[in-house]
């Protein structure tokens, strides 16, 4: 589904990603872990097409199409979803209006007409229940006045509504208490299917107790320096990232 080859990217002239390789197949959940400054959020930003990130080398293919050639909205319409680490507030624009616009824009891209209001509302109701999201939040302005946990749940709620093929969760666990973490993870798990894939970017192993990955990658200094089964996360938790830092020669790739 996603194939990243030798990706190099820089921000303000400083190279952050230094030759990153990653293959994600449908039905898989990949966790990307790494210390602060290793390039985790840069990867999420480059995948979604945020301004200010310059790709200097390498390629990203999404279902065979060159993702780097696409505008951010076209990437979204192709089925790439980013759950933001810091969801943005848009005053005066209600969540529901925002979602309706997004759903119909994506449908129109795929040659479909607007969704029937009745169907749309039914789905909103269903997904909102799944995310244990207060019904009133849906009518409030996008993320405005939401608590940290509500914002993150709202991200997953939007994901549920938009049904992406590839979802990137950028530090979705940061700032969540244990209950919110449980709800968010349950939401993600319900959305897992053989047809979609997830990239879970996180600093801590905690989230991976709930969203169990098929493979864990360690990102360090702009490269994936170690990949392994889910147990790798536990090992990292136990030994810390210094363990990786101390064996710079230890670069291996595991393909599953």
């Amino acid at each position, binding site marked *: 589904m996603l194939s990243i080859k030798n990706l190099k990217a820089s921000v303000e002239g400083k190279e952050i990603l230094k030759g990153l390789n990653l293959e994600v197949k449908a039905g898989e959940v990949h966790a990307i872990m790494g210390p602060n400054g290793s390039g985790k959020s840069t990867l999420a930003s480059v995948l*979604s*097409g*945020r*301004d200010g990130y310059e790709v200097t080398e390498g390629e990203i293919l999404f279902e065979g199409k060159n993702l780097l050639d696409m*505008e*951010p*909205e076209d*990437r*979204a*319409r192709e089925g790439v*979803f*980013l759950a*933001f680490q810091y*969801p*943005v*507030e*848009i*005053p*005066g*624009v209600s969540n529901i*209006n*925002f*979602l309706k*616009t*997004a759903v119909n*824009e*994506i449908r129109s*891209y795929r040659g479909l007409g607007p969704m029937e209001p009745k169907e749309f509302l039914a789905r909103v109701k269903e997904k909102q229940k799944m995310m244990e999201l207060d019904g009133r939040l849906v009518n409030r*302005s*996008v993320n405005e006045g939401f608590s940290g946990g509500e914002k993150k749940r709202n991200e997953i709620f*939007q994901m549920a509504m*938009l049904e992406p093929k590839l979802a990137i969760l950028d530090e979705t666990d940061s700032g969540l208490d244990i209950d919110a973490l449980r709800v968010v993870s349950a939401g993600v798990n319900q959305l897992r299917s053989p047809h979609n894939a997830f990239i879970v970017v996180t600093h801590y192993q905690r989230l991976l107790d709930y969203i169990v990955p098929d493979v864990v990658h360690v990102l360090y200094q702009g490269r994936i320096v170690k990949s392994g089964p889910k147990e790798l996360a536990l090992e990292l938790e136990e030994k810390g990232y210094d363990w990786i830092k101390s064996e710079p020669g230890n670069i291996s790739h595991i393909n599953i």
Partner: protein
Amino acid sequence: MEIIEELTSGEYKYGFVTDIASDNAPKGLSEEIIRFISAKKNEPAWLLEKRLEAYRHWLGMSEPDWAMVKYKKPNFQDIIYYAAPKPKKQLNSLDEVDPELLRTFQKLGISLEEQKRLSGVAVDFVMDSVSVKTSFKEKLAELGIIFCSFSEAVQEHPQLVQKYMGTVVPHTDNFYAALNSAVFTDGSFCYIPKGVRCPMELSTYFRINSAGTGQFERTLIVADEGAYVSYLEGCTAPMRDENQLHAAVVEIVAMKDAEVKYSTVQNWYPGDKDGKGGIFNFVTKRGICLGNHSKISWTQVETGSAVTWKYPSVILKGDNSIGEFFSVAVTNNHQQADTGTKMIHLGKNTRSTIVSKGISCGYSNNSYRGLVKVHKSAENARNFSQCDSLLMGDKCGAHTFPYIEIQNPTAIVEHEATTSKVGEDQIFYCKQRGIDNEKAIGLIVNGYCKDVFDHLPMEFAVEAQKLLSLSLEGSVG
């Protein structure tokens, strides 16, 4: 940013000319012209006297230049002060209306039939200062509500007109008010009797059609004790290379416990993308909360005109009276707007709220200018003002000039203003959800204006949103 390029190419969709022969006065202004207008309208002597008095006063005044707008001052001898569309005979049903005029309604998207059927809005249509048709009159008459053209009111209800006209905006008020008082040709009149809640929204559409004409209409709304009315005003004008002058006066009187809600969607022709042509919109709008517990609320969406100079105001004379001003002003290309409000607190426990949202694009300049004055007599006055400006593009300007004068220590007055641009992070967030640039900006800007749109009657709010998206979008071609 490419949007900026796109924004500057917005086109005016209402720029058609209705082909109806006008019955014009000769160009220029003199006592003779004023007598001509007055005679043409078969006016009583007192009104002619009022006009002449205003004219003589006007001769001694000079055009104000304190607003943050630059324009070539109109040549007042080069304007046609009276242009009535033919036929002028009283019309009783839509069938009698000139089909050309009906097409005008349709192009404006305000077909009377539609309006009648869908919303029960009573419409008074003023073209080139002459009222063409007032619908629903009979229905309103049953409740004792008078809603008619100003000329008709002069004929039918002279005592009411004489009693209130010029009491809120005297002809000495300012240059354009004086000019209007001398040469006004028509407008709307509305009287809601004691205790009556007007069951439908009253609506007037103004349109400047003839070339070389100025539009000088006058609106007078009187809400008697305990009355309520919601009044809508819309404006359009055809595309012309020359600048045309619109100098209107609106007066509102609210008695004890009365409430008047006045909503405007102003979409006069703004000139082309190089700043050629367009309407000079120099308007004096003022209401007085005369009785205790009365309320006047102004809501305006200003997207048109080459130059706008307009400060819908409220004099809060009655104790516990309330004044409100909600405004969205969009300027694009070379448009200039200097608009805001004055809230004059005289009575005890008076309250006022000001919410102003300015959006500047292209090479335009958009200023908020407002006055909050708390007089010594205004115990426990309260005001809250919020003035936000949004800049789109680096060639435009956004300015805020609030004047706050407080002479009573019991007052609580708060003013906040911000200036910013549409957040790049907001646009990216929308894009990541599959929404393109143009739609994203439309969403964000409409969201930014929500506090004001919320105060518009439903069907007007929809029109306002469309208009806003249009002036941002047309552009995004």
